[in-house]
């Protein structure tokens, strides 16, 4: 076939086939689309699995699967709340009153598990406030290292068998005339008193020993000598105008700090009362109370005896003679105050102010003595108080009761001697730890190998239980019944809020079953019945209420206490008790002062990560104790912070790192007890040094005549705040220069209330700012009422699931506390002035953290909260950099996993988490939320009740526990609200207000009640 030439002219050709006019191609050209494509569509005609058929099948099977689910049966063990337990509303917490750590509390329980410990607002002493220890004790309930089963010689044994064996041993010991020693804590419970008495009745050879490492025993002995009773009246501190604290840390760790703090704060409530007490603290160690003093007199702890007598002498000489008889005059005449002042290089001006104040207002002045002082100093203090005639400041209707004196050193010595000579058959360690607490010179360890049957009933293993044959696990306070009668007007009750998590029994119930003598007879309710009987006998019958016993009992349980109409417990008349002449303290180079730790106490909370990590109120050191010495003493010795020193007494020595504490008296060493536990869980391991080894006897906590020498090596102490040396001029007084802490004197304020704002410019924004209409959250913190105890920090930790990071991370500056107490020194290293400031997210209107976050993870709510969206946060840390208050905290690790090999990452410890607060993970920024979960809870409540939410509906965690009532939270747009009063007060200011970030936390300027106008 040849191509048609004419065609060629008219047609282009695309292929050779087309050129040769292949009929196939010509045919194909007629059809635009390929064969079959344009045919009518029918599913039936489709082959195999077409697209349409596939989709049809897919949707059909999906529909089938969906309907099939209706018959879904789970084979797993899920127990739904279809039959709701009575009184439990899912998601709604219940509160039960009880007492924990000897403080009356409410326990917040969600679906049967305790998640928080808050104050009991009805309680007349605590008024809903708490210290730092109590909320954190929640962690002890969920400590994975609690004892879970009874053991005998480290092998598991069941309760019935253990009981039977022990009852046999007790019976045998009683029959053989061998002593049964019951060693316990100070007895505060009437039912335990009765229990011990019953125990003695059943086992005639039983003897009870009670001890406390640090106690107010000396004070009680002195009181007994002076007034004929060991029951000491409480002090109406709120009515005092002048307070002289002699080595007394009444705000920090001595006696009822919650009540005293509240009263002290009340006496300095300028906003509401317009008045201010004056606090003189005479102390050798720098304590929390000393930090809050208007005048701090730096007097070595062994000079106080002479100091008080000199003071008495001076007061008598200046005409205070009403209560001064001849005998007293004669006794003090050899103590001229001028000599004392000169001899110890004190500030004569401060002393003269003190004398003047005491003379001016004797009945408004009170002298408080510290627990570590010897009996004769307490006697001298009683003399001084008697001289002042301040009886009106003692509250005889609420007396601090004493049920039984503690065992004396002699009694303990004799007990050990008897044990070693085989006269003791059984030792029962009733929830304490004598091997750790008693001075090693007594040699109590040996006793445990000598005595045949040794029993420890304890919550977790300790130095004593490790040496005991029988270790019986005791229940936590939240799993126990109990009563407490420490104040003459209140009888407190304890009730369990959770059934024992492990195979534990409360120690009182164990003892009760031994009294019954039948091992099978144990019942969980037995001790409760016993307790009710005691309550009926002691309270119901004497108080004779108008209701029947059951209602009275339930009512008291509900409240957590019963009021006791005890009337006025007037002590005997003051008996003059000539003070023994003590040795001249100047002979010694060094005096050692032992105190309990603010948070882990005598070591009982050493395995509690929250409490270990609390920064020391003064030094800000956590996880360790140290030997605090004055800057001059350190210089003399040639030591720096962290250097190891050797402290020697006649019989023993201790190597411990030194910490240079401004404000310490020269020649004084102060060490906290409770550290250096050897048998303890992973948290408390390797934390600190046990200073109890330096004690000759339990009562000697003020040890004169120790020697101090530099040792080799060092030990790293970690703190949450850098130690800027006070004498470094380049960084001195920055807190004042930068208006972080604004201060003045009470005198200046009275003369010129607006003094704080005189030199301030009015700031103006250049952008159009967001208007906050309606409710807007804000907080105020009164620096005059805040004593920096750290309760807020602890309460926040529990409420907001703050992780424990451990010593290594604190060293790197990665602690996670959302609220912290900043401590600043001014003045000289020897005589520092201290300013404290709680610092938390300021929820700034112009928050600098918000505009720098690239992913909008932090932003502002319409009611003025600076919010964090954890899920959105990628962790650039830019917000933390740009926060001028440095309150943002970053999860550098998954801290729950990172701390001590995931110590708190287990099924049990998870239960301590507050279900209303997200548990943050690694790589996320976090910070104070103003307890947004509480705000939302209050909002839901308001919606349910069909009303608007009010600022006063919300109480933040820090505010709720604050014993000084220093924190107020609420609606700052409501002019009537409490917080508005503070916000607009002339003493109110914002930290770094010149940055114009417009913070929403108002601070009330700190006033010092000094004689001069300038602080």
């Amino acid at each position: 076939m040849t191509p048609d030439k004419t065609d060629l002219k008219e047609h282009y050709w695309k292929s050779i086939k087309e050129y040769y006019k292949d009929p196939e191609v010509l045919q194909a050209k007629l059809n635009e689309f390929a064969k079959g494509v344009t045919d009518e569509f029918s599913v039936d005609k489709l082959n195999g699995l077409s697209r349409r058929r596939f989709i049809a099948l897919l949707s059909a099977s999906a529909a089938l699967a969906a309907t099939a689910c209706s018959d879904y049966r789970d084979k797993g063990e899920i127990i739904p709340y279809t039959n709701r337990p009575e009184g439990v509303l899912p998601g709604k917490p219940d509160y039960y009153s009880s007492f924990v750590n000897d403080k009356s509390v409410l326990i917040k329980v969600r679906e049967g598990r305790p998640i928080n410990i808050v104050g009991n607002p009805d309680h007349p002493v605590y008024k809903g406030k708490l210290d730092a220890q109590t909320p954190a004790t929640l962690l002890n309930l969920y400590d994975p290292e609690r004892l879970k089963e009874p053991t005998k010689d480290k092998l598991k044994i069941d309760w019935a068998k253990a009981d039977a064996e022990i009852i046999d041993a007790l019976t045998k010991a009683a029959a053989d005339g061998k002593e049964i020693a019951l060693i316990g804590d100070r007895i505060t419970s009437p039912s335990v008193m009765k229990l011990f008495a019953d125990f003695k009745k059943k086992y005639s050879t039983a003897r009870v020993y009670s001890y406390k490492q640090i106690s107010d025993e000396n004070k009680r002995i002195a009181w007994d000598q002076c007034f004929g009773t060991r029951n000491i009246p409480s002090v109406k501190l709120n009515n005092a105008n002048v307070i002289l604290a002699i080595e007394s840390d009444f705000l920090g760790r001595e006696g009822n700090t919650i009540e005293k703090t509240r009263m002290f704060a009340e006496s300095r409530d300028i906003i509401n009362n317009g008045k201010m007490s004056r606090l003189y603290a005479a102390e050798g160690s720098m304590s929390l109370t000393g930090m809050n003093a208007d005048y701090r007199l730096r007097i070595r702890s062994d000079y106080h005896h002479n100091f008080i007598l000199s003071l008495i002498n001076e007061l008598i000489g200046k005409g205070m003679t009403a209560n001064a008889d001849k005998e007293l005059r004669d006794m003090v005449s050899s103590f001229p105050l001028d000599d004392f002042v000169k001899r110890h290089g004190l500030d004569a001006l401060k002393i003269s102010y003190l004398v003047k104040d005491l003379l001016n207002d004797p009945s408004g002045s009170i002298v408080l003595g510290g627990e570590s002082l010897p009996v004769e100093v307490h006697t001298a203090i009683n003399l001084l108080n008697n001289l002042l005639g301040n009886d009106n400041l003692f509250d005889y209707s609420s007396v601090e009761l004493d049920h039984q004196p503690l065992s004396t050193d002699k009694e303990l010595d004799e007990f050990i001697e008897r044990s070693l000579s085989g006269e003791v058959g059984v030792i029962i360690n009733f929830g304490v730890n004598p091997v750790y607490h008693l001075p090693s010179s007594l040699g109590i360890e040996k006793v445990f190998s000598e005595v045949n049957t040794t029993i420890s009933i304890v919550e977790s293993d300790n130095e004593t239980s490790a040496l005991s044959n029988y270790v019986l696990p005791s229940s936590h306070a939240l799993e126990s019944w109990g009563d407490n009668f420490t104040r003459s007007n209140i009888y407190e009750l304890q009730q369990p809020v959770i059934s024992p998590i492990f195979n534990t029994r409360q120690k009182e119930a164990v003892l009760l079953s031994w009294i019954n003598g039948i091992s099978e007879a144990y019942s969980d309710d037995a001790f409760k019945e016993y307790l009710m009987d005691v309550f009926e006998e002691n309270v119901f019958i004497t108080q004779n209420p108008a209701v029947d016993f059951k209602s009275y009992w339930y009512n008291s349980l509900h409240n957590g206490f019963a009021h006791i109409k005890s009337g006025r417990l007037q002590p005997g008349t003051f008996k003059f008790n000539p003070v023994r002449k003590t040795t001249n303290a100047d002979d010694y180079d060094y005096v050692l002062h032992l105190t309990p730790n603010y948070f882990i106490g005598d070591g009982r909370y050493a395995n509690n990560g929250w409490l270990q990590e609390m920064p020391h109120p003064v030094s800000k050191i956590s996880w360790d104790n140290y030997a605090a010495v004055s800057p001059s003493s350190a210089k003399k010795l040639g030591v720096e912070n962290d250097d190891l020193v050797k402290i020697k007494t006649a019989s023993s020595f201790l190597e411990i790192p030194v910490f240079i504490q401004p404000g310490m008296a020269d020649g004084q060493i102060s060490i906290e007890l409770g550290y250096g536990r050897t048998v303890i869980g992973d948290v408390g391991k390797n934390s600190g040094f046990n200073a109890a080894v330096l004690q000759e006897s339990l009562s000697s906590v003020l040890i004169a005549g120790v020697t101090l020498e530099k040792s080799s090596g060092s030990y790293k102490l970690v703190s949450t705040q850098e130690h800027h040396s006070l004498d470094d001029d380049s960084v001195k007084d920055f807190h004042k220069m930068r208006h972080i802490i604004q201060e003045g004197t009470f005198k200046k304020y009275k003369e010129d209330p607006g003094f704080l704002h005189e030199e301030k410019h009015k700031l103006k924004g250049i952008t159009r700012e967001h208007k906050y209409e309606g409710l807007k959250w804000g907080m105020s913190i009164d620096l005059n009422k805040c004593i920096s105890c750290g309760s807020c920090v602890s309460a926040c930790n529990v409420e907001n699931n703050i992780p424990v990071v451990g010593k290594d991370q604190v060293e790197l500056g990665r602690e996670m506390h959302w609220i912290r107490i900043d401590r600043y020194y001014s003045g000289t290293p020897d005589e520092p002035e201290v300013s404290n400031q709680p610092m938390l997210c300021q929820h700034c209107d112009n928050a600098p953290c918000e505009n720098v976050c690239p992913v909008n993870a932090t932003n502002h709510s319409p009611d003025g909260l600076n919010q964090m969206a954890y899920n959105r946060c990628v962790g650039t840390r830019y917000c933390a950099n740009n926060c001028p208050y440095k309150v943002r905290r970053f999860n550098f690790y998954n801290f729950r996993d990172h701390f001590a090999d995931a110590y708190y990452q287990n099924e049990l410890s998870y239960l301590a988490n507050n279900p209303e607060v997200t548990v943050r993970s690694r790589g996320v920024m976090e910070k104070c939320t103003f307890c947004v979960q509480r705000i939302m809870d209050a909002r839901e409540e308001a919606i349910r009740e069909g009303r608007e939410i009010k600022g006063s509906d919300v109480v933040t965690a820090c505010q709720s526990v604050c014993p000084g009532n220093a924190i107020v939270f609420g609606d700052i747009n409501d002019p009537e609200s409490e917080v508005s009063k503070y916000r607009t007060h002339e003493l109110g200011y914002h930290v770094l207000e010149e940055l114009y970030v417009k913070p929403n936390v108002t601070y009330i300027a700190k006033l010092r009640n000094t004689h001069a106008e300038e602080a």
Partner: protein
Amino acid sequence: MSTIDFTRELAVVEGRPPLREIDDIISKPLETRPDKKYYIALSITLTMLGIGAIALLLSFYYGTGLWGNNNPVGWGLPIVNFVFWVGIGHAGTLISAILFLLRQRWRNGIARFAEGMTIFAVMTAGIFPLIHVGRPWLAGYLLPYPNQHSIWVNFTSPLLWDVFAVSTYFTVSFVFWYVGLIPDFATLRDRTTNKIKKVIYSVTSLGWRHSNRHWQHYEMVYLILAGFATPLVLSVHTIVSFDFAVSIIPGWHTTIFPPYFVAGAVFSGFAMVQNVLIFIRKIFNYEHIITLDTLERMNKIMLLTGSLVGYAYAMEFFIAWYSGVQPEQFAFLNRAFGPYAWAYWIMVSCNVLFPQLFWIKKIRRHIPVMFVIAVLINVGMWFERFVITVTSLSRDYLPSSWAYYKPTLVDGAILLGSFGFFFTFLLLFTKTLPVVSIAEVKAVVEGSQPSHGEH
């Protein structure tokens, strides 16, 4: 007295090598097998890279806690490294774009290499913003993409601007570099006998035929891209400086930062280019292409930018004093006399004092000395970023929250790894692409252009 003829252009390439010889010498490294020294060098850089990779894996597994960062100092070495590497990445585009627009023909010998360094430095820098975050697997949140949460990125955050600035800079630099490579790819395609190489070069040269039309378009595109890249050179480090300048931290909150950062970036970039070129010209015998004159010119730029940086240091102190703001004043006193004084004085001596030696012509032209000075400049510039980032954060407003920052071994390993990453790419570059632009060098060989000077 002899007079100097200022109208005569100085020769950029020494001697008068035939154009064929230029082809040969520049493509020689690509046509020969790598020698033992090359493998030794590569194994060193790969080891460094490996150490860095292990450190990064550990950081991803355990968390940023392995670094020295703490509560006040949220940004540590990763951000220091980021700013440092972005700075290194400045010289390339400056040389190829700005100097091109300014008709600085001496740049032709070094432009390709400097651009390559830019690309690798920006790649190195780009790693850090991604890895420094707490949850690197969510770094995608930094990109604005529509999502079912309806959450948009925060356009007021300088970190977000960084994402855009750095990625734009990288893209434009890369395109610019690639466009410049097209004629060279064509030359290589024509020279090679290896089939695989031929295919690759054919594809990458995009059908370049050295035709007049091609050249005409090429010159136009190159000019436009140069114009496009020029503002980016200035904007990238300006925006990086905003990371600091937009904050309210004393020592960061400074309006001088943008020009000061750009000057510093050019400074460190030139120092790095000079360092590497000294080796390249020696190893590949390019002494007559990358001449001592060129190196001297680079040293002059270092002298200029170094002085600018020194001026900025002084001005920061002056403004801090003049502002009367106490935290601001303290921030600078603290830099010079606080706990980080050692870092500050390393920075000042390396950046301000040593470069002043370049006033002396002998030193400008003395290769070992200039090499040492440039190394010191890079040390100094790294410390500048360290001083800025760390000192301001470690002691800001509240003395209660001051803390000392100490980098950890892992931090150091990541820094080492970044050098390994950079130099590995650089080494691979020398063996895969012409490190000097064949076409551009040919253009500046004496006699290659019609001129009336000599006839």
